[in-house]
């Protein structure tokens, strides 16, 4: 490995002499730092669309079938007279879920920070294959564009829920959105999966092969461990979704019967025979559940790193943290059936999946307690990134605990597909992962753009977001427990739920305020690129290697030799040192022992 790094160093000493055109520098860049920015900005744009959609359907739930200028302006023919149509309601819910889960929290989060941090933190010149990395981004971009185009299809975008269960998603006569809209959805996802696989393979290879001298696996920062394991889960599970999508395309377009059987719709019997929608559910959730961890693990890594740095303390239980990441990754592939307790599969399977599902609570608990111990007796620097990290732990606990209810098959019978599950997964993976992403952006912004974000705007962004997140999702548990199903266009046909209408108004008001305050972030983000204060070399006084690279980005990351690593990533406030952090590239002092972590 050391020889490899060294030869690499010599080659790349000349790297920055290459003449770069605008095209190769900003568009078809093969530099991981630029690609990470591309991911981040594309993800942010998709995020704005996704959040805007959620605000629209929240308005419909709170003030059902009332004319709304926002609908009239944005939905056009789907909101005659400003009243939202029931079909577009389902489409908004569907595309919101798809965009947030895949385009923002998978590509936007993992794509951004894996790309930025893997080479910089392990001490590599770039990704193993810069070319594949570029292809990966452009496939992601292409899939984003196709997903956006699908919004403008005549019969409407996909509207079968983000889980696109057939037959609803397979039969254009079942729903307008299951025509061209669904075709584009499937094509977009297939391309997205290709992008994700290329990215993941690249991350895995880079982490295994390109670590600098001294960077053993047990000296890696937890961010890298998290990205590494995330990439592995992605490689294992995404192909299964690809196969499900391909089989669904065949059922839709070529008359096969993988997922369809015995269907009578709109006065005619269809030819499909022998397929099973439950098979699709198995295939979908074999990705769908690990996907939750693909979303949350990078956030966990980011939070671990930021918490240690800002508490000026080593992360507590480094090995336990790695072990719990591995345990979560393993368990995540054998719990998918908990989405299907009442799908009609054998109840015995339900018992097995309850068992494995509740086991996941154990590594999750270990992680949470370790984070709390990390800040215990720390010297906590309340930078915005730190606030979001603390917020992450808070929402992760709140949302995670209700998982003990959802994961219990007996209890799931009655809250399945109610607002309870909406509250649960938004807190535990939606909001938490978003906090992880925000934390990462605030923390590594100086590394990405060479400037600082405004901290006061950051504080405002955090506190309002934190309050609104709880304001939106906490009461949702209660309307779920009262039996209110999700994905209802309006509840006004059920007088039974009339007493919950005011809760829905409260939730929507919080959602609107929370949504508007994201503008503070966007303003801060984009303005700081140009007018932010120039960043110092190591603003947060962190130990990891990325802060040893020059502020101004260069090809190959470090001029001259790549730094060597002599210690783990968490020597904060180590006794016997004058400063409260010792970077990884500082050799051990005479007589100093590396912690047996």
């Amino acid at each position, binding site marked *: 490995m050391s020889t490899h790094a060294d030869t690499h160093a010599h080659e790349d000493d000349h790297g920055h002499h290459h003449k770069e055109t605008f095209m190769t520098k900003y568009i078809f860049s093969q530099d991981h730092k630029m690609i990470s920015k591309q991911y981040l900005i594309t993800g942010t744009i998709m995020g704005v669309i996704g959040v805007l959609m959620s605000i629209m359907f929240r308005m419909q739930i709170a003030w059902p079938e009332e004319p709304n200028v926002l609908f009239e302006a944005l939905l056009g023919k789907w909101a005659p007279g400003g009243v939202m149509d029931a079909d577009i309601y389902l489409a908004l819910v569907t595309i919101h879920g798809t965009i947030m889960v895949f385009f923002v929290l998978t590509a936007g989060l993992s794509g951004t920070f894996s790309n930025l941090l893997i080479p910089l933190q392990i001490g590599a010149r770039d990704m193993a294959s810069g070319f594949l990395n570029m292809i990966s981004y452009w496939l992601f971009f292409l899939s984003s564009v196709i997903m956006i185009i699908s919004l403008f299809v005549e019969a409407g975008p996909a509207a079968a829920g983000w889980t696109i269960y057939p037959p609803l998603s397979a039969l254009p006569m079942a729903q307008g959105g299951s025509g061209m809209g669904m075709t584009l959805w499937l094509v977009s996802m297939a391309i997205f999966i290709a992008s994700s696989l290329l990215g993941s393979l690249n991350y895995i290879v880079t982490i295994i092969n390109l670590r600098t001298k001294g960077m053993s696996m047990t000296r890696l920062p937890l961010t890298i461990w998290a990205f590494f394991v995330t990439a592995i889960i992605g490689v294992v599970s995404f192909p299964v979704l690809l196969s499900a999508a391909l089989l669904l395309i065949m059922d839709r377009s070529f008359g096969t019967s993988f997922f369809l059987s015995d269907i009578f719709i709109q006065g005619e*019997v269809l030819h499909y025979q022998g397929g099973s929608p439950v098979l699709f559910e198995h295939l979908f959730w074999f990705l769908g559940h690990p996907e939750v961890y693909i979303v949350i693990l990078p956030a966990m890594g980011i939070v671990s790193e930021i918490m240690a740095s800002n508490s000026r303390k080593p992360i507590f239980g480094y090995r336990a943290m790695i072990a719990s990441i591995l345990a979560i990754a393993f368990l995540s592939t054998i719990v998918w059936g908990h989405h299907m307790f009442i799908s009609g599969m054998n109840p015995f399977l339900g018992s097995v999946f309850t068992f494995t599902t509740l086991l996941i609570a154990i590594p999750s608990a270990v992680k949470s307690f370790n984070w709390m111990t990390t800040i215990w007796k720390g010297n906590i620097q309340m930078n915005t990134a730190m606030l979001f990290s603390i917020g992450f732990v808070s929402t992760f606990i709140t949302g995670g605990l209700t998982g003990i209810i959802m994961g219990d098959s007996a209890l799931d019978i009655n809250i399945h597909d109610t607002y309870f599950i909406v509250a649960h997964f938004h807190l535990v993976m939606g909001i938490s992962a978003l906090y992880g992403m925000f934390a990462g952006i605030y923390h590594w912004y100086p590394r990405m753009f060479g400037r600082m974000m405004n901290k006061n705007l950051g504080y405002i962004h955090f506190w309002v977001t934190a309050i609104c997140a709880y304001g939106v999702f906490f009461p949702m548990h209660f309307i779920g427990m009262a039996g209110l199903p999700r994905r209802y266009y309006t509840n006004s046909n059920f007088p039974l739920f009339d007493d919950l209408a005011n809760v829905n108004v409260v939730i929507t008001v919080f959602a609107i305020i929370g949504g508007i305050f994201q503008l503070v972030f966007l303003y801060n983000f984009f303005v700081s690129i140009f007018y932010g204060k120039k960043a110092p070399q190591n603003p947060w006084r962190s130990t990891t290697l990325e802060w040893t690279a020059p502020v101004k980005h260069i090809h190959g990351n470090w001029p001259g030799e790549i730094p060597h690593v002599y210690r783990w990533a968490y020597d904060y406030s180590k006794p016997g040192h004058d400063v409260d952090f010792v970077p990884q590239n500082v050799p051990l002092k005479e007589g100093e022992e590396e912690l047996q972590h």
Partner: protein
Amino acid sequence: MTAFLTIIIVLFVAVAIWQMVKIFDLAQVGSSNSQIATDNDNKINAYLMLAFLAFIYIITIVCFVKWGDLPLMSNSASEHGSEIDNLMIITMVIIFIVQTVTQYLLHYFAFKYRGEKGKKALFYADNNTLEAIWTIIPVIVLAGLIIYGLFTWTSIMNVNEDDDPLIIELYAQQFNWKARYGGNDNTLGKANVRLINLDNANILGLDESDPNAQDDIITSELHLPVGKPVLFKMRSQDVLHSAYMPHFRAQMNCVPGMVTQFGFTPTITTADMRQTQQIKDKVANINNIRAEKSKELAAKGEAALEPYEFDYLLLCNKICGKSHYNMQMNIIVETQEEYDAWIKEQKEFKDSLIK
């Protein structure tokens, strides 16, 4: 109106942001503009952490007090319902305690150990005993919950056909429900959507030559005799639906191409349920809300809302298309005599066909 409200909200938000920026700016007079947290920032945010902890507690209390009287935690109308409710309450108590304690620790630590210049953090990287403690405690608690949960699940899902349950088919289509009773022989006739013949009104696709099908009874309201085990066989003709009967703690998907099942025993008749204090209060509350709303509607010259009367409901709970939000069927639980009288009035399948 909404437009106006939206503008007002936006204005307020803008003012709020401006004010907050001011406050933070004022709080920082004299410090350097490095965009890195100062001692003062640490202090303000540390206190805000405490305030936020209070906010979490308050929102929890408000939710429990205002909406904690949950129909899904008490007052179940089926035999197994109370088992689910007990398990739910035990789990809720456990997670409530864990939530209260952990949120306290997290936010209190954030407050207590806020950064100050010159302070040095404790170098504390590892402790196997602690790790073991917080591995083993969740293991024990979860083991208890898993075992309890699995017993409950198994007892609910294992339908015992020896009790001679009443067999009823729940038949789902976009966007309504049908129920099919086995008739005198309590046996459902064979059926497949391929046999649907709208011309002679064989709408559920029953096999017209099957003797068991002749006395089947198809209804669009679900009547159940109280105290008698019922075994539902679910079918769907088009897309996935889910038969959700929240008052009975019952739910099962309806899957095209296969028959799924769920069984329970209703324990309280609709009439008795309406007389329970909890339902009386709920209905009164809902009717107040509806009366208010009717006034608004009347002002606009629209028809008033009908008063609400409690009924058990079957809802569709799996996204199934445009009118998913209005796919429901009334469930009426009644005494055996009332049920017998009602079923006698229904047409048998062989008589319902158009010859």
